[in-house]
């Protein structure tokens, strides 16, 4: 008669079936889904492009900045890009709603531009470090490091070694 207890338990618990697609589906926070990219913290090291198993990420240098492209239809959600990103600019969200009609196949792309800046001292074009790298490298804001951050490597060297004369 043990089955009666199981029967009652099952009646009380209700169906085990998830309501989706008629209701919300449960998704773990750590689920690896669609890649998100934050161009304000990207430092342009290209490591994500290098480690990308499917070759879904592409960087290209253009006049206005570093162009970032990700093809979600090639991404295998392995998470290597997020693992190797030094500033955590690239992350995997738990959004798995990626299914689409064939007409939208070539729209499954995210594009972002990491703009170049000019050196505050000599005006040369430079790849900005961003506040996230600043935080990582100097463990907090400090006026001197912030000033150096916006300079090109040459001017930075001059200011660091020769002094503030530049």
């Amino acid at each position, binding site marked *: 008669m043990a089955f009666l207890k199981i029967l009652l338990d099952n009646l009380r618990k209700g169906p085990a079936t998830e309501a989706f697609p008629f209701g919300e589906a449960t998704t773990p926070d750590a689920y690896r889904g669609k890649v998100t990219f934050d161009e304000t913290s990207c430092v342009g090291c290209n490591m994500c492009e290098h480690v990308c198993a499917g070759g879904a990420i592409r960087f290209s240098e253009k006049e206005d900045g570093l162009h970032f492209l990700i093809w979600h239809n090639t991404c295998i959600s392995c998470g290597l890009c997020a693992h190797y990103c030094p500033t955590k600019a690239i992350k995997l969200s738990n959004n798995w709603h990626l299914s689409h009609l*064939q007409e939208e196949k070539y729209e499954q792309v995210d594009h972002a531009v990491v703009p170049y800046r000019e050196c505050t001292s000599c005006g040369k074009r430079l790849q900005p470090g961003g506040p996230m790298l600043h935080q990582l490298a100097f463990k907090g804001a400090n006026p001197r490091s912030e000033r150096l951050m916006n300079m090109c490597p040459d001017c930075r060297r001059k200011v660091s070694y020769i002094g503030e004369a530049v």
Partner: protein
Amino acid sequence: MDFLSKAARKSPWLYRINAGSCNGCDVELATTACIPRYDVERLGCQYCGSPKHADIVLITGPLTARVKDKVLRVYDEIPDPKVTVAIGVCPISGGVFRESYAIEGPIDRYLPVDVNVPGCPPRPQAIIEGIAKAIEIWAKRA
């Protein structure tokens, strides 16, 4: 006959084609159908064993050179109208096998695909979402 076509609109049968998949997506497809937690048969569809009974075709795998002719032959056996769903990144773009000498895909070079479900593999809920989209298309075509 009118009654039959009305009934067919509500109960499309699913058929799987493995076009050289690693089996990851096939496991997820089996999970989607066989585990009560996901239970794709709530949507009125069920898996069938013969291509001649199929309405919605689920294709996994990057279409390897070796399996290409067989896949196209099986696909031709499925009666029209049919809805084709590409499951996983492999049939959509080639995934990690893209540009390999052994790969003939992406699959839309040879077959008319209707719905894409990317993922490596896509989770069962994502597959159900894709099948729901395919059923909408099927309702218009049947």
